């Protein structure tokens, strides 16, 4: 599965979140959630273990509710393909504090590595741009990841979209907390909101 010169997904996510400050990070169903957990548990990590196709919309709701905080959605190509319409919804709302990063291994790694549409034909960067997310790019070096991590702290220039071609090797799972109420309540608490 390994290909030369492709980025390591864990290193990509660790780099994105190394200097996160107050940023909220949403992890899409599957390995993206493990990658965020591997980078270190955090009150502002929002792990998904289901709701395939919903990660970007959760990010949009958060970004609109918390316009002064950076919000980053980190998800996979399969999860993004299922929620492709949400890029059109984001393109219309244009939240300046929202960043979307797709870790693109061109396959459904969690279910046996079946190839996804991005392996051959689907161009998610083109889709995002065509949906009105003009800052839409491919990242292929760690230097570009570092620059993106700095850029996503700027809450006046989003939304932005990045597709990162990553090494398709399946890594050991790093299991995050999977109690949704706990994760939600913890995030709300860090933003100053009490339970009902």
């Amino acid at each position, binding site marked *: 599965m390994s290909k030369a010169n492709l980025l390591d997904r864990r290193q990509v996510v660790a780099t994105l979140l190394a200097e996160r400050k107050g940023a909220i990070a*949403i992890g899409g169903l599957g390995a993206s959630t493990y990658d965020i957990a591997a980078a270190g548990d955090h009150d502002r990590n*929002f792990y998904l273990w*289901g*709701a*395939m*196709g*919903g*990660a970007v*919309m*959760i*990010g*949009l*709701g*958060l*970004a*609109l*509710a*918390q316009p002064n905080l950076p919000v980053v959605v980190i998800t996979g190509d399969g999860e993004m393909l299922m*929620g492709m*319409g*949400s890029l*059109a*919804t984001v393109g*219309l*709302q244009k939240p300046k504090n929202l960043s979307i990063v797709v870790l693109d291994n061109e396959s459904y790694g969690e279910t046996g590595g079946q190839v996804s549409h991005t392996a051959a034909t689907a161009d998610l960067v083109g889709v995002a741009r065509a949906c009105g997310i003009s800052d839409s790019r491919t990242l292929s070096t760690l230097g570009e990841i570092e620059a993106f991590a700095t850029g996503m702290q700027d809450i006046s220039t989003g939304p932005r979209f990045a597709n990162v071609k990553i090494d398709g090797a399946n890594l050991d799972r790093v299991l995050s907390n999977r109690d*949704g*109420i706990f994760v*939600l309540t913890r*995030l*709300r608490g860090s*933003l*100053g*909101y009490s339970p*009902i």
Partner: protein
Amino acid sequence: MHARSDTPAEQAASWPDDIFALLKRFEVRQVPYVPDAGHSQLINRVLGEPSMRGIPLTTEEEGVALLVGAWAGGQRGVLLMQSSGVGNCINMLSLTQIFRFPFLTLVTMRGEWGEFNPWQVPMGTSTQGVLELAGVKVLRASHAAEVNDVMEAAASQAYDACTPTAVLLSQRLIGTKVFVK
């Protein structure tokens, strides 16, 4: 997704304004929607209200996920859709149990009460059952005079008790779409 014929009675309907006033009183901020003619008056009020954000969706399930994010960020929302959209939401409705967040949706009904279009009937017939199987409490308003009370109950249990709730606004209330005279 269909425009109903504009009759003077529809234009003068006050129940959409009642709903709007109640949503405002409950400090609803994010209003995702897939348009339906039965929601058009309410959508227009929302789009004209600075404290609310009307958010057009490409498919209704986006709205369920959006409302999770809104609540995680401290805001209440409400999802506006037509009965056919409920079917599009099924898997995403899991989130109402996973997160126990204040989920409220207002569903304009098709496929009942003199429906002309047979394509609306299957989903319209299963709308309430689908919602209930997904764990969503269902309230219904069939007459303009009861909309306010039904909405008050729905908003209270959704926002104050995090009980996922749908209000079905019946085709009898909204007016059957007229295709043929």
